């Protein structure tokens, strides 16, 4: 064999780095309305294409077109718009609060608001999400009090989690929001377990798991797919592909070919990609998947194609690893502006009412923040007690902890 050449390692690289011109030419974007809508009991083998395309409803002109359109009324959409605007205003205020030293850390959703806000609308009370840290829209759209979210972020005396969790790692059983872990990926397979339990118990509730594009590399992701497909668990498995995992572009987790959604195909799980910046498309696909789960037809895998406009977290500086104007070049636009334009086009909204609404939403968020800050912030005002630190490790405090609490003098 004299044609043998030395091997060389392939390390995937993004198209551009800081200083370059943003380039999304490799993101193939089908026309809005062009992807078919199969019946929910379709044979997964017949819809393999949907794992490679992108389901879109809103076109460039702001019209809702195609088979996935027509599911939401004006009122629904106005409510959705308000949820997204609220999340954006909430982010802006909490980011500022972090800069002011009122909390240690914050993670924002800028550009990804449609994903969690629209998905939440497709769920019923009693369903359970197993979220990661960029789905606060599930809480906002689910009516969880903003003041409680802020109390958690400020680790103050009214923090529902008593200062134990990192800011933004919310937990609300009542609002179908499982306690967030900082360990990536762990929740994905737990979602499958919750769904299996619902099926074992002949319940009617379903679960939704959430994971980022980068975190799909964790074994938990693969374990979730195995269990979900084996037991046909009533679960919706959501991958939020926002292009970046801190400084690492999505091609590192995905490799050079295929899509994240396509990972479901080997398991026989119906797998779809959707425009994550299109509120109507996200809702339509979520509802399709939720209905499948509810009708005991098994799991669905959804990849939301979106873009993380902001920094990864308050500890991150994205200009160090991607072009500064990359987010503006993102071909799927801004989810808030797109829904706004659609509502204007429908005759249900105007630029002026939008400006008014922006101001109102900001007032509501600021009022909530004032209320929360009355209970303290991380470094000033009321705090959860040090005594609380020893509670809740076990249902009942064992003697060794009681001893330590005594030793700590609290």
């Amino acid at each position, binding site marked *: 064999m004299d044609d043998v050449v030395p091997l*060389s390692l392939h390390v995937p690289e993004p198209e551009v780095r800081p200083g370059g011109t943003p380039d999304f030419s490799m993101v193939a974007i089908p026309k809005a309305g062009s992807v078919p809508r199969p019946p929910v009991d379709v044979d997964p083998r017949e819809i393999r294409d949907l794992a490679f395309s992108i389901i879109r409803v809103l076109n460039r002109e702001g019209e809702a077109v195609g088979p996935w359109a027509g599911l939401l009324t004006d009122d629904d959409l106005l409510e959705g718009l308000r949820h997204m605007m609220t999340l954006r205003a909430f982010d802006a205020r909490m980011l500022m609060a972090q800069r002011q030293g009122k909390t240690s850390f914050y993670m924002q959703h800028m550009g990804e608001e449609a994903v969690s806000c629209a998905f939440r609308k497709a769920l019923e009370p009693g369903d359970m999400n197993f979220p990661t840290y960029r789905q606060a829209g599930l809480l906002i759209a689910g009516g969880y009090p903003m003041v409680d979210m802020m109390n958690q972020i400020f680790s103050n005396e009214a923090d529902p989690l008593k*200062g134990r*969790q990192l800011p933004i790692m919310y937990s609300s059983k009542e609002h179908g929001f499982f306690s967030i872990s*900082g360990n990536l990926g762990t929740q994905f397979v737990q979602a499958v377990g919750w769904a299996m339990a619902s099926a074992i118990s002949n319940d009617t509730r379903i679960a939704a798991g959430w994971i980022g594009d*980068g975190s799909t590399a*964790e*074994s938990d992701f693969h374990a979730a797919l195995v269990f979900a497909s084996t037991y046909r668990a009533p679960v919706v498995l959501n991958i939020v592909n926002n292009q970046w995992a801190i*400084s*690492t572009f999505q091609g590192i987790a995905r490799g050079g070919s295929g899509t994240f959604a396509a990972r479901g195909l080997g398991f026989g799980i119906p797998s779809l990609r959707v425009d994550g910046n299109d509120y109507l498309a996200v809702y339509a696909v979520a509802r399709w998947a939720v209905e499948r789960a509810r009708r005991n037809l098994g799991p669905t895998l959804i990849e939301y194609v979106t873009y993380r406009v902001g920094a990864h977290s308050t500890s991150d500086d994205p200009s160090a690893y991607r072009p500064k104007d990359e987010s503006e070049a993102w071909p799927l636009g801004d989810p808030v502006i797109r829904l706004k334009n659609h509502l204007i086009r429908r005759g249900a909204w105007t630029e002026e009412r939008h400006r008014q609404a922006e101001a109102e939403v900001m007032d509501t968020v600021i009022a909530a923040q004032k209320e929360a800050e009355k209970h303290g912030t991380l470094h000033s005002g009321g705090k959860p007690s040090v005594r609380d630190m020893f509670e809740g490790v076990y249902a009942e405090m064992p003697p060794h902890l009681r001893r330590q609490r005594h030793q700590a003098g609290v």
Partner: protein
Amino acid sequence: MARMTMIEAIRSALDISMGRDPKVVVFGEDVGYFGGVFRCTAGLQQKYGVTRCFDTPISELGIVGTAIGMAAYGLRPCVEIQFADYVYPAYDQIVSEAARIRYRSNGQFTCPIVVRMPTGGGIFGGQTHSQSPEALFTHVCGLKVVVPSNPRDAKGLLIASIEDPDPVIFLEPKRLYNGPFDGHHEQPVTPWSKHPLGDVDDGHFTVPLGKAEIRRQGSAVTVLTYGTMVHVAEAAARETGIDAEIIDLRTLLPLDLDCIVESVSKTGRCVVVHEATLTSGFGAELAALVQEHCFYHLEAPIARVTGWDTPYPHAQEWDYFPGPARVGEALVRTMEA
């Protein structure tokens, strides 16, 4: 001689090792282009190319598992786990595989890998960015476990770890990355450049694994500690005025038992300090060894000062891990016994 932060010292160790030995490869989450979230690997990809320093998928199991395979091939991988709290997905690969390959193959295969990870609290990282998992590794035969407390040691110990023929778990106290810390959180951090321990030798040198260092000579009581708590213990000795001998263990496995025994036999008293939780912590091992080897010299019960047996709380972290006050109390109590 240069003045460096611990981050710079770690980077220097990696740079020197990669420069000397083309078999050394460095990888992990965000370590390539960006240079790691703590910047320990900044510049290495530019200097050595993408096949010697690269970003990995977010898969700790994948990182350590591939490192083991590379080591079996003959490379010397030095990998980063972004935070020690995230090493658990890789735990099986470390414990069941890396640690035993030499033994089970009767030396046909070996596993000279280094797994670096930031540990410990003090940065408001909450329960998943603050843990000190050293005891989970010292319990495993076949591993070496290293914890530096200053830039010079960080560099010398890391080079020694990369050159070591066995797998090394290299725990980096992140509270010390940018300067020493004495546990007084209300005081600004003194940068290493204003601190005598910030002096780091240029070029290649090693600090041998398995050797402790006496940080402060004393005759009244021995403090056994490592990492961030070395600085806290120094503050406690200073503030109580107790003539404590402070031993920085530097390597927990294998342990410098001679240094410990000699010191405790001289002082007759012993306080163990670590940030990790108490129960089944590394302090239990230290206390047992001191009891076995120095029983007839002991004039007081061995005291342990540690983090509490709770997950690391975000808001109460200053109450969670030992500061100079708690260490000082233990010193006083031990002296009075």
